[in-house]
């Protein structure tokens, strides 16, 4: 689920990378301040994209501070935070919590159960701020699990459910941009779901767990190419909607991710096979 909304660092200018990284550091800082170390370990680059997207769209006041880095103790990093960092931190926690719960329920991995329990107190705080978001994530994931148990093969349906989750997350407020943000989130969510299935297909075949690409992987000689076509359809819808937003600030970073960065794992996985 995590790790697909990444940058292509090789194609990014130094200064853009510094800006992107500063939002990542800002997210880390906010996670620690709001949710402690347990919150901090849920940090991912995926939500950094959301922060940069919303920052580009709304151009809010953004604070810049220098922070010590827990992962790089000898380094000081610039951290940028704004109201969307707060939002992304809450969302990050919600997604991590349900991912842990999900893994526990599916695979009975003990560690996941413990992680979910650790995050639970913070979830109760977030429940008061974003009850609607939590309900949407929870309900959709539950539906996804149900359909996986039934071995549902309709990929539009399955990917669409995850798309609904991201759509809900991207629509951070009710305003004139909500429909566009929902559409961007929806197709990005579908991309992530399909990318996840594409990457895990061998593992799922071996473990006997659900994956909508199992048959295609085994029977389709053009599996990689056809999957790429599917994934492109999703990113095309997502990006086209993105280009309609009046975003000027940080637009190069966002384009790097949408047109190039999201394919990094695909390239890695495909070349490995």
């Amino acid at each position, binding site marked *: 689920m995590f790790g697909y909304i990444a940058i292509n660092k090789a194609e990014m200018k130094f200064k853009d990378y510094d800006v992107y990284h500063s939002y990542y550091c800002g997210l880390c800082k906010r996670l620690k301040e709001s949710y402690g170390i347990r919150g901090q370990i849920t940090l991912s680059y995926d939500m950094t994209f959301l922060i940069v997207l919303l920052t580009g769209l709304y151009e809010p006041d953004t604070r810049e501070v220098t922070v010590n880095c827990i992962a790089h103790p000898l380094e000081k990093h610039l951290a940028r935070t704004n109201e969307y960092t707060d939002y992304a931190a809450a969302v990050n926690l919600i997604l991590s919590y349900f991912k842990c719960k999900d893994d526990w329920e599916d695979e009975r991995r003990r560690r996941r159960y413990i992680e979910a329990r650790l995050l639970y107190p913070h979830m109760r705080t977030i429940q008061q701020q974003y009850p609607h978001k939590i309900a949407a994530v929870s309900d959709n994931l539950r539906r996804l699990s149900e359909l996986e148990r039934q071995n549902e093969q309709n990929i539009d349906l399955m990917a669409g459910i995850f798309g609904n989750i991201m759509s809900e997350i991207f629509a951070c407020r009710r305003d004139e941009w909500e429909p566009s943000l929902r559409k961007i989130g929806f197709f990005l969510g579908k991309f992530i779901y399909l990318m996840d299935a594409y990457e895990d297909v061998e593992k799922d075949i071996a473990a006997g767990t659900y994956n909508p690409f199992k048959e295609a992987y085994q029977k389709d000689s053009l599996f990689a190419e056809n999957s790429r076509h599917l994934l492109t359809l999703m990113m*095309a819808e997502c990006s086209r909607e993105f280009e309609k937003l009046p975003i000027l600030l940080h637009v190069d970073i966002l384009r790097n991710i949408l047109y190039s960065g999201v394919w990094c794992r695909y390239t890695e996985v495909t070349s490995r096979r």
Partner: protein
Amino acid sequence: MINPYSVLGVSQSASDEEIKKAYRSLSRKYHPDANINNPNKDQAEARFKEVQQAYQQIMQEREYQTSGSAQDGYDSSGDFGGFGGFGSFRGFSGQYRQADAGPTESEDDLHMKAASNFINSRHYREALNLLNGIRDRNARWFYYSALANSGIGNNVIALQHAQEALRLEPNNFQYQLLVNRFQSGGSWYQRQQDPYETTYTVGSSWCTKLCIANILCNLCCGSGMCCGGVPGGYI
């Protein structure tokens, strides 16, 4: 409304970036939060909304032109509010409506007509419910199914069904247009990827590039101490 371009104060040939800049500066000026102390704040708010609508209309029109897509793709809110009749397929559906009228209509025909009406009014789920109840699945069924599926975001099925409609009636220009429209997104996206040379290159990691750059520098400068500095000199 009047010409949206004049609302934003740009020419029709302005680039997307120029339009976005114009939007940003105008919306900043007329934003409700920026006009709290303005005695004419109602007027400012009205202008703000006007600027908003003009911007969205222009972007919608441009999407239609470049990718051939009408605004009846995935509709996340269900209540876009009229952007004017850009949907070319609406004209075609009108033709079907006239062609189908007659006393010998079967139940399926009635359902197909109703489905088409639902699609026109963007009630895609209702359209799909009707379509799923129809047993006789001809080319037009697949065409409507493609449109309805596209409306709820099932773009994979939408493309498959559009292709099936075309396969059943290869000479149907309308079906060809729909297939083209669904595929045009992918072509547009791949063109957008052109500036990023290393997207699909294997082994193009940052470390590799840095190493290669370093080696090249060593070969060129001979000093190996710097890149972009005076050859043979020290930093």
